[in-house]
């Protein structure tokens, strides 16, 4: 009888320990996912192959820029967030394929493709080691996504076992003024 109880107890203990191990193991996607490098806006955040420094974040209802020989206008029912950034490759020539805005709830807004062709964009631009590049990240967001947000920057769009810089933005962005129109080329030149 005692043997049976001992066996049952050790079996139950084994089950509990194994269940606990299984529950606390992150999924495969997390285990093989991005390796974060955390930082704040205004400081230089170093990832494996690049460094990034986020400057000012401007908000606008519409954007304007010149591309393919004409002026392009983009409007939004939400808000455009334009972040000034300085990026530099550190290990070898590369480009940033993953630039996204993550709001406080974990919703991820990828870099806007509506402004493709604007010269000041850093998305996909070739970066050389030793030559920092200044430019813009452009996101289109609902107003609620401005609070306590962070930027996710990486070389590949879905980094797997590679660095992803996670940069906390100022908490008070949702209180900032939203301009009616912002010219991307002028804004990039001004900084």
């Amino acid at each position: 009888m005692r043997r049976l109880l001992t066996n049952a107890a050790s079996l139950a203990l084994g089950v509990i320990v194994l269940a606990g191990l299984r529950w606390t193991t992150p999924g495969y996607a997390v285990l093989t996912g991005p390796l974060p490098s955390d930082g704040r806006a205004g400081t230089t955040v170093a990832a494996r192959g690049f460094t990034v420094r986020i400057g000012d974040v401007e908000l606008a209802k519409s954007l304007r820029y010149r591309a393919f020989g004409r002026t392009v206008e983009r409007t939004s029912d939400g808000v455009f967030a334009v972040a000034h950034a300085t990026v530099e490759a550190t290990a070898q020539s590369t480009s940033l394929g993953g630039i996204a805005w993550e709001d406080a709830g974990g919703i991820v807004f990828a870099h806007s493709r509506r402004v493709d062709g604007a010269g000041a964009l850093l998305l996909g631009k070739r970066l050389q080691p030793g030559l920092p590049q200044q430019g813009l990240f452009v996101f289109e967001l609902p107003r609620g996504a401005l609070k306590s947000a962070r930027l996710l920057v990486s070389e590949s769009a879905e980094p797997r076992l590679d660095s992803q810089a996670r940069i906390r933005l100022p908490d008070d962005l949702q209180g900032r003024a939203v301009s009616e129109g912002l010219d991307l080329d002028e804004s990039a030149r001004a900084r």
Partner: protein
Amino acid sequence: MPAELEPARPEQASPDTEPSASDPRHSDAVPHSDVEPRHRDREKRLLRLSLAGLLLIFPLAFAAASYRDVAALLQSREIIGEDVQSGASMTYAGGDWRLDGFKVVTGGDPRLTMPEDRALVILRLGVALHQDVGELWQMCRISLVDAEGRRWLPLFLTLPGEIERLIEPGGLSAPSCGSVALSKPKASSQVTIEEKFLVPRSALTTLIPVASTAGARPRYLRFERPAL
């Protein structure tokens, strides 16, 4: 409820004793260790051999599962470097490779001025082919590496004709390594590879041209630059 097993008593065992079904201490479903010493020794030896076999099987299984990945890794990494003296050539990937030109463009003409912190480098490699290299030269990688190990990859840049003539007044521009490989040059021909790089001026003095192709990696070539 089975009675507790008593440990086997060697003095009770004899070579001809079989576990008895009628013996109330034993049952068919429960094995017991009351075997003869000869069997026990054989068991122990078998156990040791199996454990030793594991030491052999684990590495073999690992190798069998990953040899293709290791081969792919070797084909993509530059590990074994070979230095090519200035002015000399080195046999590599089906041809004799030679550094033909390392031109730094920082200005000299209003149309060629570069910002002060950077320079355009135009690298030329001449190769005398021994064999058909279309296959060997796949995924060829030409880069500039500095003393810290930072690496600059070629620009995908086609310069306007007049700018090309300013840079290279006498010669024609040559195709990139990838273009040359695609054109499948024939054995015993001469080809020129040209690649352009954008580098910081501060790194110019320590830059070393490096070349490798998928067919010849992990070996790669490091070219010594002519005296600056």
